[in-house]
């Protein structure tokens, strides 16, 4: 691992996680009217555990035809959301909850960007020495 990889701490990983999650939430919102669609979301705890465990705990495949391990993404599993109310067409997307989660996620993405910007500024300062 080079110096630059560690210089930014967890922020790059967080950004990737936030961007993956925003796509998942967008897919939920897009399917808000699809009968039988089950809303899914990333679980922060399992994503965090994955990040801490690093690459040792995940299985590597050495051949493109190896069968991948199901449900083991880079950020852990996506889990089905438990709906708070029952809908007759079996759809578990609750627009308000998804919207709230999406904007929360966007906010956290922005804060990670902010942290990254801070680190970049510090590095610049160290390089220029001004």
């Amino acid at each position, binding site marked *: 691992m080079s110096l630059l990889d560690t210089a930014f701490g967890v922020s790059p990983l967080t950004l990737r996680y936030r961007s993956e999650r*925003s796509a998942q939430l*967008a897919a939920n*919102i*897009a399917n808000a009217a699809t009968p039988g669609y089950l809303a899914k979301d990333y679980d922060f705890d399992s994503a965090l555990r994955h990040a801490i465990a690093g690459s040792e705990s995940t299985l590597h495949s050495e051949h493109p035809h190896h069968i*991948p391990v199901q449900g083991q993404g880079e950020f852990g599993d996506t889990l089905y959301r438990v709906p708070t109310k029952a809908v007759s067409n079996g759809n578990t997307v609750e627009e308000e909850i998804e919207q709230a989660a999406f904007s929360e996620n966007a906010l956290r993405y922005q804060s990670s960007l902010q942290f*990254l910007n801070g680190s*970049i500024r510090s590095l610049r300062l160290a390089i220029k020495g001004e």
Partner: protein
Amino acid sequence: MGIANIYRITGTALNSHSKQLDLIAKNMANSQVISGSEATAYRALRPIFTPILDATMQGDEVMGVQVEALGVSTAQIEKQRMPEHPLADGNGYVYLANVNMVEEMTNMIQASRAYQSNVEVMNTSKDLMLRTLTLGQ
């Protein structure tokens, strides 16, 4: 998946919901259509939404939504006695469209709200991407 894919996902959703609005307009426009037999009476069209699945290493990933097919409403076709109508059948009946205006209006509100929230998602993602582009400046 990632923010770059959101345009694809939300794009399909906008497309599907505008198709749904199209169908609602069609149903409302044809709500007064009179027909000479039960078989040819106008039946309200309904979009059938299905998720677009993309097979990945982690199983099926949802990449949006599509209108897979059009269904017709199974609501009963009402017949009305109008012997003087040129389309009336042998018994003097004409058959009305099975479009329920109230139902169409509520569907329209639902479709336009869904459209709006997807536009909102697109706008937010655009802001995030623009901010990411100016990272470190």
